[in-house]
């Protein structure tokens, strides 16, 4: 029995109704390449998925069809999956900070201003000259400013500074 279809092209190739003899050999679908695309000049390349391909040239061709036929793209990279070295999710703790790494961060240096204020105060105490009217107002001004200032803590919560 041949397949009877509404599509005349399928009728013309006379496909058998029963056929269970297809055996797909290993490597029939080749190996895979990891695909990276760049959406615009100046952007980082970003991993978007894989293609199966027999060589890098065809991997680029398939990558263009699969990942750039509609979305914006100016450049593609392909890398054989076999050539990628990756960390293991089991070892994710290697990314955990082992101790306080605030010295690496900009927020690790938020006390600088306090240090200056403390230094100025101590200097004033050491030489208790009669304050002039102008220096009083200056002092008031600076302490008012400090009390208003908010500092963003490590947790991102805004802490009112006393």
């Amino acid at each position, binding site marked *: 029995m041949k397949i009877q279809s509404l599509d005349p092209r399928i009728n013309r190739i006379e496909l058998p*109704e029963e056929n269970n003899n297809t055996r797909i050999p290993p490597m029939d*679908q080749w190996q895979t390449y990891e695909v990276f695309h760049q959406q615009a000049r100046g952007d980082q390349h970003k991993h978007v998925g894989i293609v199966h391909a027999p060589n890098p040239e065809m991997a680029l061709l398939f990558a263009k069809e699969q990942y750039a036929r509609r979305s914006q793209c100016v450049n593609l990279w392909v890398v054989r999956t076999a050539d990628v070295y990756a960390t*293991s*999710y089991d070892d994710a703790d290697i990314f955990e900070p082992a101790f306080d790494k605030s010295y690496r961060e900009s927020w690790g240096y938020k006390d600088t201003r306090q240090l200056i204020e403390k230094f100025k105060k101590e200097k004033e105490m050491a030489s208790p000259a009669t304050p002039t009217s102008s220096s009083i107002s200056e002092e008031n001004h600076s302490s008012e400013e400090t009390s208003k200032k908010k500092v963003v803590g490590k947790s991102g919560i805004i802490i009112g500074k006393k």
Partner: protein
Amino acid sequence: MYGNLTIIEIDNFGKKIEEEDPIKLAEFEARIARGEKIEPQDWMPFEYRKQLIRMIEQHAHSEIIGALPEGTWITRAPGFKRKLALMAKVQDEVGHAQLLYAAAETLGKSREEMIQDLLNGKSKYSNVFNYPAVTWADTAIIAWLIDAGAIINQVTNSKGSYGPYCRALERICAEESFHLRYGYDTCVHLATGTPSQRKMLQDALNRWWTPIMHFHGPPDKISVHGEKLMKWKVKLASNDEMRQQFLDMYVPKIWELGLEIPDPNLHKNPETGKWEYTEPDWNEFMRVINGDGPCNKERLAVRRYAEEKGRWVRMALLRKEEKYVVPLA
């Protein structure tokens, strides 16, 4: 496109959940409960891997077989614009299959094995594609309403727990919105056209209503419930929930075009807010899924033909030193 994971087979193949390492299992479940994704290299219970492979593979086959009923109309599309659009849509569907095969591959089943299982009938694809696209209007109904059903399913699944599947679905959903607009436009064009165009569309809707109602799978009361699969975020909504969502979104749009839905009982219950309808013939659904539909043989024969006729090209390009490595993500 895609019909829901319609049959969750309960079998004894592989490691049972009781045999899994309880500590690892608890960590795995806690990760999912926190809303984190599972990545291919993570520990996962055998049952999770097995069900995901089955579901993603079935989804991939549905995309590639789903391209056939529409693809057959490319040469006969009415006009150049429709031909270009249909070619683009069919190419998208084949692309979806490739993205999904890639996601399933990360779980350890090769693309060769998946294609093999499709061709020998071991793994299924969405039942609706075992029905023919008799006229141009059938392709319009498929592109609008079958894709609409698929989108509901795919958006739901994209919130699942398996990283590679979610990422593939995100890409796919972005393209499906074009399919939906294209399908809607094609239907509206016929619905607002000549009397014979309207009749062609109505006839197609009559033919497709049962497959559309079948699309999201058997009703909850007769389908196997997968509580564990819900907990693992493999399945995220029940078949009936997705069907209700579909009816809610599309029945008013169908009625707006003055088309008649071939179910006199179809209405929304104002008290429950739920749609009530005549159950489609679920025996027919089972019969067709098991191979006895109008196009099952044709779909597999055409797929097999493509596979066999293209092999010499693939083999000619294959270099001896090539080795397969499971894709990373």
